[in-house]
């Protein structure tokens, strides 16, 4: 592997590569994210944004209490989010735990949802605390069951200790397991990385190691996908594109619960990375409750009156 010619796989080359990164102006990032969050999106633009956001949702259920019934229910919802309105697009993907991948894939195929991919969280999600052998098996298992996207977590302990090469090698290994069968999303758990500098560093490390997507969080730790963190990651993919001509996707996850939050994310994408990123191939939103709010806002725009959660499915 040549890692875009940026790294040769040795620890020294990785250090040299990451050393070239500029630091993140924390105050500036916060201020810019806050400024972009004030933008008002109305009428036809809002309508477009809602449909685009629906198509970007990775509809997620990651609970210990997940059942086959629940996974099948969200699969049904993923294909046709509003049963009364066929003009609502399908969501970007279904995101489930490893053992539910086969259930989800089978049910999606059954109900005409072949176009909806199944993403599996992998590598001892959410903590990432397992041996590399277990992580490889975990990933292989999900791919065999029909997952076409793998959401792996990095070893935050190793990252914070400075063992960056271990983090890098782990991503490379999982990348090899995915091969051309599955997209790889790398989760940083930005709430545990402490600084924006670390987020930028992790982004470049993961991108060089072969990530197709970089993802903010597991959804199990707060704060998760805050606007400034997403901004920092979007700047990273933009800069990486300039270096390598390769577009890497971004997936904020956790804490995006309503339409307003989702539209703020779209504004960030447009203004920071650019319009090329404004589609479900390069931007996804990991969420569960968000979809209902998007549907309710859509109903409001169609009917002219405020909708009630009673009229959308619970999950």
């Amino acid at each position, binding site marked *: 592997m040549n890692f875009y010619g940026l790294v040769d796989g040795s620890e020294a080359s990785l250090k040299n590569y990451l050393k070239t990164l500029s630091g993140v102006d924390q105050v500036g990032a916060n201020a810019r994210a806050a400024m972009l969050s004030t933008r008002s999106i109305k009428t036809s633009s809002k309508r477009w944004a809602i449909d685009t956001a629906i198509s970007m949702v990775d509809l997620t259920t990651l609970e210990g209490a997940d059942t086959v019934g629940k996974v099948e229910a969200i699969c049904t919802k993923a294909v046709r989010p509003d049963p009364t309105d066929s003009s609502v697009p399908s969501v970007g993907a279904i995101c489930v735990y490893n053992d539910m991948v086969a259930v989800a894939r089978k049910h999606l195929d059954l109900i005409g949802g072949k176009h909806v991919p199944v993403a599996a969280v992998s590598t001892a999600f959410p903590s990432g605390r397992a041996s590399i052998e277990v992580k490889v098996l975990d990933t292989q298992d999900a791919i065999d069951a029909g997952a076409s996207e793998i959401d792996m977590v990095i070893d935050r302990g190793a990252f914070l200790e400075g063992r960056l090469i271990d983090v890098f090698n782990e991503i490379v290994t999982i990348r090899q397991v995915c091969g051309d069968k599955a997209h790889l999303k790398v989760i940083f758990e930005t709430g545990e990385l402490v600084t924006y500098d670390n987020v930028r560093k992790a982004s470049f490390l993961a991108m060089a190691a072969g990530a197709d997507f970089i993802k903010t969080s597991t959804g199990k730790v707060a704060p998760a996908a805050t606007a400034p963190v997403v901004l920092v990651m979007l700047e990273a993919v933009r800069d990486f594109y300039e270096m390598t001509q390769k577009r890497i996707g971004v997936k904020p996850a956790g804490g995006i619960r309503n339409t307003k939050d989702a539209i703020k994310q779209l504004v960030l994408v447009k203004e920071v990375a650019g319009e090329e990123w404004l589609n479900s191939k390069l931007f996804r939103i990991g969420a569960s409750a968000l979809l209902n709010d998007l549907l309710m806002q859509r109903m409001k725009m169609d009917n*002219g*009156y*405020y*909708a*009630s*959660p*009673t*009229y959308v499915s619970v999950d």
Partner: protein
Amino acid sequence: MSDRIDVKKTYKLFINGAFPRSESGRTYEVKTSKGVFLTNACLASRKDLREAVVAARAAHNGWSKATAYNRGQILYRIAEMLQARTGEFIQEIMMTTGVTKVKAEKEVLQAIDTLVWYAGWSDKISSLTGANNPVAGPFYNFTVPESMGVVAAIAPENPSLLGLIESIAPVITSGNTVIVLASTKAPLSAMSFAEVLATSDLPAGVINVLTGKKDEIAPWMASHMDIDAMDISGLPGKLTSEVKVAGAENLKRIHSFKGTTPTRITAFTESKTIWHTIGV
């Protein structure tokens, strides 16, 4: 020494237990009965209403499950808190409506008594409107009144405080949560009453108070799918048909009342019937 400069009070909305300004940033002038400028009040927008509905819906689960005894206690507590601030309310009512001190005081005292009156009803209403129904089979069959959910109320222009309390207290007694649009011309006592609510152990979101224009807010209340019923006692006649048509779309129960009556409580309850087998 120069005269001290008065600290002006900012009148805001009361949504989810907090006092935000209107999302729209709009205000309107509140004047005395003689047309002298008093203060600015928030001109609530339909988005403020939407926020209030979300808060009221979230609060409903807890409030409706609280014991009737507990709800009565909290209503009584509101009366206690209101009584302690009687003087302030008399002032505000006199300023906005121009009535005499005697009349204003009478209104405030009556408002306190009304709260206590409805507080007393909270643990009695189910005994009176519930029933043990005879059925032809080995079953017990009970009917119990339950709260409907989120209720929107339009308080009358006058009396501004008493009318507001008449449109709130009976609604929450049975476990509903409420969004009330206060008197447009005399909103001061309503917003000060919100301060009373904030210190009365009332869970956030159970009562939400908006100030603004009835023709702007009432139709949105009526068409909102997540509001279950409306008290339009304070709605001007010319808006009634518009509101009723909008409310019919979502089968909203829409009522109007006069005076203090237990009907104001029962109108916002639904009867639940329970079948239970009689043991062998």
